[in-house]
Structure formats: structure tokens, C-alpha cells
């Protein structure tokens, strides 16, 4: 009796296993991975897209970071990669090695905000040079007071807050301000959790810090954003939806991207998803606290996508102060 039961259980298990192997890939799954900066936008698009398709297509989104995402993408494990910076030379090489071709599509702006305490009454605006004096590696142990940066500022200890070295925000800020990625002084309070930075600056009159614009927008009552002097026009520009979109808030705003694998485009659901992404990005981006591109940008991106414009417009390195309309028309390379 017992033996019969065991035997029939084993038979059922074997059949079920066979079933799995035979009916392996009938599901429509779109696999996305990559940057945590782009994640909220992709999540919003995935949420809406799945609702619109009534569950017929499954979308998964992971957070492996831009670098980790490209690793999987270039091995052919994902269909789309979220990226807060362009693909780098060494990543392009890996992609080439595995025969992965891709379309590069900007989807939104990511803007950094330099913030100070609301009680700070000596800062009206700052220049990139002043920020550099404060944050460059040479400032470590030397620039310790506000007056060390500018003699007109108070002779009081400077408390600095910034994201940790694993963050894309840190990479971009150091590149845009100090001129070299990851080149920064090390003696500041670093946290991967931006909410910690918000608290730090909100409770210290002599504090300064930087992080993504979305965190400033959510905490406007506790913080003050520093207008940054635009090098071209020499006018101080406050970060806002309008100034990021029209390109005057520079150099602390950059486009962020999705990379779509060419071979994934043979799947109609991926094509449909990307089209949906670009058509709805303007609305969804704002909802999650990011700055959208202009309509003309999205139209041009759609054109690039439909025309299968393969490769990156950057040539394998990061670039500060890039203009999206110009980028989209550049010649691109794989």
C-alpha cells in the first residue's frame, strides 16, 4: 500500500518535471536590470504596461547598478538595461564579444542638487569652482571651514554630506565638479541612503550636501537648494523642472538611458514595451519625481528606435554637459 503510494507520487513528479521541460518558454517575459537611478521610472512604466496588457506580458525589473546591469546585458541575459551613464568602452567590448547589439535611448534627466540648511544666510549661489574647492581631493584636511572656500563666508566648521562611492550620483558629481570620476575628498559624511543626507543637512546650519533632485523636492521644507552658476551664461540657475529641461541648469543635470538589445526586438512584446516607454515617459517620469525630456527628444528617440539606430553616441566614455537633441542625432558606434 505504502509502496504503491510512493511509486505513484514519483510517477506524478516525473510527469510534472517533464511538463516543465516541454512547456518551458511559453511565457512572455521582458527582463530588465540595471541602475537604481533609472529604476523608479522603469518600474512605473512596467506597472502601467502590465496593467494595459492585463497580465499577458510579464515584466521583471532588477537593481544591479548600471555596471552590474551591463554585465548581464552584454552576456545576453536581459532584454533591456537601465543605465544612469552611457555604456563604457570595456562594456562595449564585452557586448561585442557576445554579439550583443543595442539601441541607446535617453528616457529622462537626472539632476543633482547642492543643498544647504534653510538658516544659511550667506550663500546666494555657488560656482563650479567654489564647489570644486570644497570637494576636490586636495581639499581633504585643508578646507575645513566655510571661510577656507571664500573669506566672506563664516569662520565656522564646514559639515559635508554626500553619497557613498558606490553610487552613480557620486560618480557624476565628481566628474562634473572635480573633473574626474570618483575623485573626491574622503572626509565627509557619506551614506548610500539619501534620507540620511537629508537629515544631516536639515539639522546643521553649517552643512552642505548633494544628492538627486527628487530627494530635494520631497524635502523642500527642510532644505534650501543652491543655485549653480552656469559657465556659459554666468547666471545662477536654481534646479527645477524648467531649468533642467531647457538645459540651463548645468553641469549638474544629465540624461539617463535604457539600452535595448537588438535581438530582443524580434520579440513583439519588447518592441511594444519600448514604444510604450517612450510614449508615456513624460507623464510617468514626473510622477516619480524625475525630470522628463522634451517632446521633441522623445519623438527623436522613437525615430532612432524604429530606425534601429544601433550603438552609443558617446564612444565609450562619460561626458559632462551633453545636450540630448544633439546626442540623439550623433553618429553612433557599437
Amino acid at each position, binding site marked *: 500500500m505504502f509502496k504503491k503510494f510512493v511509486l505513484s507520487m514519483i510517477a506524478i513528479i516525473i*510527469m510534472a518535471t517533464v*511538463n516543465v521541460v516541454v512547456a518551458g518558454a511559453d511565457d512572455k517575459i521582458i527582463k530588465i536590470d540595471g541602475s537604481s537611478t533609472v529604476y*523608479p521610472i522603469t518600474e512605473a512604466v512596467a506597472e502601467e504596461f502590465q496593467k494595459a496588457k492585463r497580465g499577458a506580458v510579464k515584466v521583471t525589473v532588477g537593481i544591479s547598478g548600471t555596471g552590474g546591469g551591463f554585465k548581464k546585458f552584454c552576456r545576453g541575459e536581459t532584454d533591456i538595461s537601465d543605465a544612469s551613464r552611457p555604456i563604457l568602452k570595456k562594456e562595449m567590448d564585452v557586448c561585442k564579444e557576445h554579439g550583443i547589439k543595442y539601441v541607446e535611448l535617453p528616457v529622462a534627466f537626472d539632476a543633482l542638487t547642492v543643498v544647504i540648511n534653510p538658516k544659511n544666510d550667506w550663500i546666494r549661489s555657488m560656482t563650479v569652482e567654489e564647489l570644486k574647492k570644497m570637494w576636490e581631493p586636495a581639499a581633504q584636511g585643508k578646507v575645513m571651514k566655510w571661510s577656507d572656500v571664500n573669506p566672506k563666508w563664516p569662520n565656522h566648521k564646514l559639515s559635508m554630506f554626500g553619497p557613498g562611492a558606490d553610487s552613480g550620483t557620486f560618480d557624476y558629481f565628481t566628474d562634473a565638479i572635480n573633473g574626474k570620476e570618483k575623485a573626491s575628498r574622503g572626509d565627509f559624511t557619506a551614506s548610500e541612503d539619501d534620507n540620511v543626507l537629508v537629515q544631516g543637512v536639515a539639522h546643521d546650519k553649517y552643512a552642505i550636501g548633494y544628492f538627486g533632485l527628487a530627494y530635494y523636492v520631497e524635502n523642500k521644507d527642510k532644505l534650501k537648494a543652491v543655485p549653480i552658476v552656469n559657465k556659459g551664461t554666468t547666471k545662477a540657475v536654481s534646479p527645477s523642472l524648467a531649468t533642467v529641461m531647457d538645459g540651463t541648469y548645468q553641469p549638474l543635470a544629465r540624461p539617463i538611458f535604457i539600452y535595448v538589445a537588438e535581438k530582443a526586438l524580434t520579440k513583439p512584446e519588447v518592441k511594444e514595451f519600448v514604444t510604450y516607454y517612450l510614449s508615456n515617459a513624460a507623464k510617468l517620469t514626473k510622477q516619480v*519625481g524625475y525630470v522628463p525630456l522634451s517632446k521633441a527628444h522623445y519623438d527623436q528617440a522613437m525615430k532612432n528606435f524604429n530606425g534601429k539606430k544601433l550603438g552609443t553616441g558617446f564612444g565609450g566614455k562619460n561626458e559632462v554637459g551633453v545636450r540630448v537633441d544633439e546626442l540623439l542625432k550623433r553618429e553612433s558606434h557599437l
Partner: protein
Amino acid sequence: MQKSKSELQTEIKKRIAVIKFWDRVFLIIGLLSTLVGLVLLFTLMADLFVNGFPRLSYKFLSSFPSRFPEEAGILSAWAGSFLVLLVTALASIPLGIAAGIYLEEYARKNWLTDIIEINIANLAGVPSIVYGLLALGLFVYFFKFGESILTGGLALALLILPMVIMATREAIRAIPNSIREASYALGATKWQTVQSHIIPYSTGGILTGVIIGLSRAIGETAPIITVGALTFIAFLPTSPFSSEFPFISFKWLFDPFTVMPIQMFNWVSRPQQEFQLNAAAAGIVLMIMTLLMNGLAIYIRYRFRRKIKW
């Protein structure tokens, strides 16, 4: 010079007073040390409850993640956690118990078993991320299980296997030798002795160890992220039961998944305050799951202890 009797007495009394003073000092230090842990724990729990409790609802448990904090829920997260733990339990319990019984009842004491024992003790202290890397290489790339529930469950099974083995051995060691001898005296073979005496008597201890291992596994994030658990999943794994022959399906084993700690971490790192509340609410659910499991462990131990008399 001789001290008078009364002088000696006062000196002894003084010494006793000093010793008693130190005795009390240590008592207070000990009490304070205990309180630090407890107070911290209670503050954390109170904070979690105050923040998260208003968000707890049936809807929170039955919704998928969303960009709108008030619509977001943890359905895919807790379903993922549950299924991963199921795989973990199914894999680690038979392996761990078999290994424990072998080491305790069958293995000869020689250098080989010594090495195995030292290794198992060491494995229990290996950081969990290392198991994640092992699982990534072995299950994802070598066996090609993909970034699936199966991989996640097996990774955690590796992680808690040393704990299950140790718990099994402790439980078996607590069985008096007279039981084994009595069994052999009646002509039972080794397997008969193990099957009808050793296993039933040690079940309580083994299950306790298993559940404590599982309640550690449920909070693990590092190995699960390493093997490729995802953050946004707005669908459930394939149902294990189907209307067609053969009625059960193992397809869910190969489905992508997310787990509770990952969902919490994602919400904590969002700028919107409301997501922080969601994270707190998810924390409460996770804590209740852990407490329930620990409670079950205590109950099982109590039940089995009561049944056995020797």
C-alpha cells in the same frame, strides 16, 4: 602585634561589605547590559509599529508593488519569501538530518570525520554573501537553474545546512545510550534502531533547529540578491496546481522572484516619505513571520519533550 578580637571582627565585616558591594555592582552592570538590548529592541519595534501599523491592511498584503506608495503592497514579496523558504526546507531538512545521523551514529572517529566536523562548524560562521556567490556559480551558471525560486531556495538551504546538522547532532546526543543498547539487545539492526528510536526521540530538537535556521533564512538579503532576485515583480509564480493532467506543476520553481527584505530595502531608499511607511509595515509583517516561526519552534520542543520519558 596581635589584633584584638573586636578589631578582627570589624575587619572581617568590612571585607564582607566590600565583597558584597562588588557583588551588587556586578548585578547592576549585568542588569543594565540586559536592558540595553531589550530597550533597543523595544524602541525599534515600537518605532516600526507606530510608523507601519496604519499601512497594514488586507490590501497591503494582496497588492503588487507600485509607484504610488498608497497602492503598493507586498503580495509578490511574501509569496516569493514563502516559496523560497519551502524549497529551502525541502532541501535542507533531509540532507541535514541524514548528515547529522551519519556523523553521530555511523561515522567512525577518525581524521576524516574530524575534518568534516571542523568544516561544518566553520561553515556555520561563513558570511552569507559567500553562499550567494557559491550558489551563483553552481546553480545559476553550472546547473543552469536560472535566477529562479529554485536557485534562491537552494542557496539559503546551503546557508542553513550547517545549523540543521548541528541541531540534529545535539538532539541525537541527548538520547541516552541505554536506549540504543536496549534496542540492539532485542536484535534490532542499526537502521531499525535509528528509524524507530533515534529519529522519533530527536524530532523535537531537530525541528527546533530547522525552524530557527529557516527564520534566519527569511531575513537574508545578500545571497538572494547575488543569485539575482529582482526588485519589481508584479505577478505571482505559476500555480503549483493545474487543471490538466498531471495536476501538479513544478514550473514555479523556475520563475523569477523577489523576497520581503529586498522589497523593504527598495522602499527605504525612495525619496517619498510614504514609501518609508510601507517599508515599516513590511518590516512588521516580516517580524510577525519570524516570531510565528520561533513560537512554533518553542511549541514543538515543548510537545515532544512532554511525550518522551526515559
